[in-house]
């Protein structure tokens, strides 16, 4: 694996088909990423972004293919930022990838990679895929998924919906929970979210791991007070007739949203491995 993000530029081929590597690349840190990613830098910073390299390939007509490689500092954060907007399961590149209309993204070890070729053509898509293979091949090691992901029960889980984060702003992925940080999610509370489908019903499981049981209990208490009308058993139907359930167990808080009934909530809680 490259020790330094600069090595990607040196190691990538100078030409692919009619596309030539433009010079020089650009480098970004948390302090200046917003000068490159207009309006999206905060997403990366919320996943502890370290630095990034951006380089281009151009053809004779000055069309561009843009390669961005983000060093997220850890495999869990590289997975997290990749999975943030994932819609499908595709393992052709790295440890998980997605291609849509000229844009390839994938993650491998601590790197999140984007190769962008708008507007899409068949010829550019082929070059994008070759670049993807070259970059993924240059990262020799694989990284571990965030451990909390493994606690999401696999039965009825839609794998493309698995999300990982440690910033409260992503609490409302898939299902609106609150405009407030009702579970005190922060950089030291790894969080997993997944969507489940069972007998036509769609519901969600959120898992938050706290540094200790006291913080987990405090977060659970706050959630019960603010969103469950203080329900002592942590279960409450919504006005739409769906069920929200909360469980605190040691340092882990689990919340089920939008379940069709209380038994579904309890059954899902029972499947969570400690």
């Amino acid at each position: 694996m490259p020790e330094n993000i600069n090595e990607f530029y040196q190691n990538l081929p100078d030409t692919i088909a009619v596309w030539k590597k433009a010079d020089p690349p650009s480098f970004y840190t948390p302090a200046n990423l917003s000068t490159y990613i207009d309006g999206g830098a905060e997403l990366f910073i919320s996943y502890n972004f370290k630095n990034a390299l951006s380089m281009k390939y151009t053809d004779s007509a000055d069309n561009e293919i843009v390669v961005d490689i983000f060093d997220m500092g850890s495999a869990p954060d590289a997975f997290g930022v990749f999975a943030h907007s994932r819609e499908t399961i595709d393992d052709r590149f790295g440890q998980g990838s997605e291609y849509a209309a000229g844009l390839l993204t994938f993650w491998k070890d601590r790197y999140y990679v984007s190769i962008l070729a708008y507007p899409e053509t068949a010829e550019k898509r082929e070059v994008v895929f070759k670049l993807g293979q070259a970059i993924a091949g240059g990262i020799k090691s694989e990284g571990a998924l965030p451990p909390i992901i493994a606690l999401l029960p696999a039965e009825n889980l839609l794998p493309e919906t698995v999300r990982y984060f440690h910033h409260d702003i992503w609490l409302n992925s898939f299902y609106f929970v609150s405009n407030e940080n009702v579970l005190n999610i922060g950089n030291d509370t790894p969080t997993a979210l997944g969507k489940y489908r069972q007998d036509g019903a769609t519901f969600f499981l959120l898992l938050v791991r706290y540094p200790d049981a006291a913080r987990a209990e405090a977060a659970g208490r706050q959630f019960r007070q603010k969103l469950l009308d203080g329900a002592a058993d942590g279960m409450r139907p919504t006005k739409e007739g769906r069920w929200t359930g909360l469980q605190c167990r040691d340092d882990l808080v689990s919340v089920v949203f939008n379940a069709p009934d209380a038994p579904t909530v309890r059954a899902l809680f029972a499947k969570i491995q400690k």
Partner: protein
Amino acid sequence: MKPRKSISRRQFIKSASAAAIGTTLLRSGQETAVPVKIGKSRVVLVRDLNVLDENGNPQYAVVEEMLDSGIKALTGMPDPQSAWKTIIKPDDIVGIKNNRWPYLRTTAEVENSIKKRTIEVGVKEANISVDDLGVLQNPVFQKATALINARPMRSHHWSGVGSLIKNYIMFIPEPDSIHPDSCADLASIWDLPVVKGKTRLNVLVMFTPQFHSFGPHSFNPKYVWKYFGLMLGFDPVAVDATGLRIIEAIRREYFAEERPLNPPAKHIAIADSKYHLGTADPQKIELVKIGYDKESFV
């Protein structure tokens, strides 16, 4: 709702009051305007299937017609020239705040249509400027007596959506300072002297709104929707709130399920409830629709 000094806001309130007492509203030295339903913010949605060519590029003549139709409906005036005279004076210094995001711009067609009508009012061309990132350094914007706020609607990784309220973020020296809590306090910018009371018109470009963010640059052609629309209003919160309803409905249609924006675009509701910049309540918005009306989602 607390009245503010912005001309757009004042005009809205005067319009509502005039309608309430059944009189004709006159602004000093300008044309007649504007019956608006009592206590409501008027939002005009204009749609035309011909606004995009086969490559998805805006057609100038159609854009101009849409803008003209919109401003007439917004002001109640019979022609675009008299409509523009209700909001711009010949001695105004006019900043047209656009958005230059490379994947989805305000578009030159919208900017030039606005500029043309502004010049027809009698404003000197030297007293008009179109700018985004450089507004604080731009001499015209520094002296501006009138602002026209024009930008496209898109989903946004940090604020839910980027639309009219957010478009003034470049009027603060450190835009990052407004980022905490997913840009909840964007409307506070509208109270700063550099913009306060100057906004005469808001134009939300909905030709191809982006309804979902994907990838590091937040953009993918897969997630833009050909909507063929343009929205106008004096109340930026009302226009944004209406645009947000459309984006949410497009997401529902595309994903075939409830898929809330992540994060929620709460700054729009907060612009109403905390900053009283306008109304986000659909019950307090008079929506006027012109042109193509299939799949309008509102």
